[in-house]
């Protein structure tokens, strides 16, 4: 069933051709701007904080693959469903909302990745250069970490979207979560370049596991031990977030039944 949803979603995206072209162009421009600023920053600077330009460009190119998940705006997806009361069906099985969302959206993400990210990665690599991981273990670790990162992202979005029960809108939460992701997930600026105190704060938060850590593994700034440790932390965070989510869901359920839906 989830497979069918995935396929459906994928097909839908194929239909909107002009949109697709514009989207590709837009994504490419953002990539272009990003590459240019890093190239300019690195002018006459061979490396900073142990990171070379080549590594930085690799970082930029690889994250535009994993950052596709954030395009999904999951908090909006969940939020809309909660507001529309579709969720009442899921009260019986709260788990299915999360998974059906994922299945549907995974179709879109796969489409985005296949049609945008991969070609852009290849194009970017051709124009600006790309450093492949040196060690073999980096590949599976990266993929695993990226996948776990996507799940962490989904869990965070899910958790945040539950506030809709109290706020009646998902806009605020979307903004604030967005701000937190911007600052702490490493999609705009990798945490290597952060002042120490900010880096310390970022380390306490789960956001870095969505982009920064997986990319770090790929680019080679992460030792094997660190990678294992990271994956362990990702799994721990997943448990913690989902537990919290479940708990808050129960509270929300109470409130809804008390107020009469």
């Amino acid at each position, binding site marked *: 069933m989830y497979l069918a949803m995935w396929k459906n979603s994928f097909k839908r995206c194929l239909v909107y051709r002009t949109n697709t072209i514009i989207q590709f162009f837009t994504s490419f421009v953002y990539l272009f701007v990003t590459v240019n600023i890093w190239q300019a*920053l*690195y002018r006459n600077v061979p490396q900073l*904080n142990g990171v070379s330009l080549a590594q930085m460009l690799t970082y930029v190119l690889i994250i535009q693959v994993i950052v596709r998940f954030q395009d999904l705006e999951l908090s909006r997806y969940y939020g809309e469903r909660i507001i529309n009361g579709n969720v009442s069906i899921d009260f019986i099985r709260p788990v299915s909302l999360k998974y059906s969302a994922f299945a549907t959206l995974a179709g879109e993400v796969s489409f985005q990745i296949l049609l945008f990210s991969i070609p852009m990665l290849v194009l970017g690599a051709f124009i600006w250069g790309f450093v492949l991981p040196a060690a073999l273990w980096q590949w599976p670790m990266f993929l695993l970490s990226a996948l776990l990162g996507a799940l962490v992202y989904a869990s965070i979005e899910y958790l945040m979207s539950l506030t809709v029960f109290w706020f009646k809108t998902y806009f605020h939460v979307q903004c604030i979560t967005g701000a937190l992701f911007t600052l702490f997930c490493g999609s705009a600026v990798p945490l290597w370049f952060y002042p120490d105190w900010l880096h310390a704060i970022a380390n306490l938060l789960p956001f870095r596991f969505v982009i920064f850590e997986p990319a770090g593994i790929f680019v080679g700034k992460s030792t094997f031990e660190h990678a294992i440790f990271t994956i362990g932390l990702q799994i721990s965070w997943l448990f913690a977030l989902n537990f919290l989510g479940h708990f808050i869901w129960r509270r929300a359920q109470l409130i809804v039944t008390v107020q009469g839906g």
Partner: protein
Amino acid sequence: MRYALLYWDFVKIQFRVAQEYRAAFLARSFAKAVANGASVCITYLTIYSFGHVLSWSAFEVMLLFSMNTIAYALAGFFMFHPFTKLQQRVNDGTFDEMLTKPLNPFFYLCSRDFSTGYFANLAVGIAALVVSFIQLDIKLSALKILWLVVVLIGTGMIHSGFFMLTNIPTFWLIKIDAIGRLRSTFESFIRYPISIYDTWIAVMLTYIFPFAFVNFFPAQYFLQKSDFMIFPPMLTFMTPVVGVVLMLMGYALFQLGIRNYKSSGS
């Protein structure tokens, strides 16, 4: 003069509507402020470790960012909703309302859809601007402050002009979301000084899609910089002119659009 007073009445009504939803309004503003604040910080952090990019220090880049934010906010108050909603109005026929009132349709459109939602952007933009000026130790005389205000209004006009030019084609093309997205794509170039790009891009951003006049050129007067690449330094004063020209183009296109208006509905 009558129009000015009337516009103020329309604006008051929008504020009255915002007041109706006071809590939501404040919450939205707060959320937007946080989001904008994060953008400012990230812009600064990009340059932070490196200290500077080409000849621009971190706070100078932040100044560029703040100018763009303020420009966008100003344009947003007056022009964003009228023109982004234009597509819907033309498609479902509610644009008819603009043509059956005893007022200039352009004026009525802008008055009707004035937006109160950009205070967060404006506040963050101004805060970032002030912080930059302080950190860069720039002293502003009264005359310079006046010029700054003129420039900022000019930048608002540039963004307004682009809003207009990218949305008015809906009179002919029906679905124009794509053009709007192209606009914001080009706008993303000016987050950083355009000297980081190849010359041809800088030329495009100066003479074809003059976004560079929003921050890159005018800022250099206040920063007393001379990073003009192949362009004449005079361009640093041209922002208000560019703004006016773009808005006039928008207005002319609008008039043309009305002539071609097909209306719809039954």
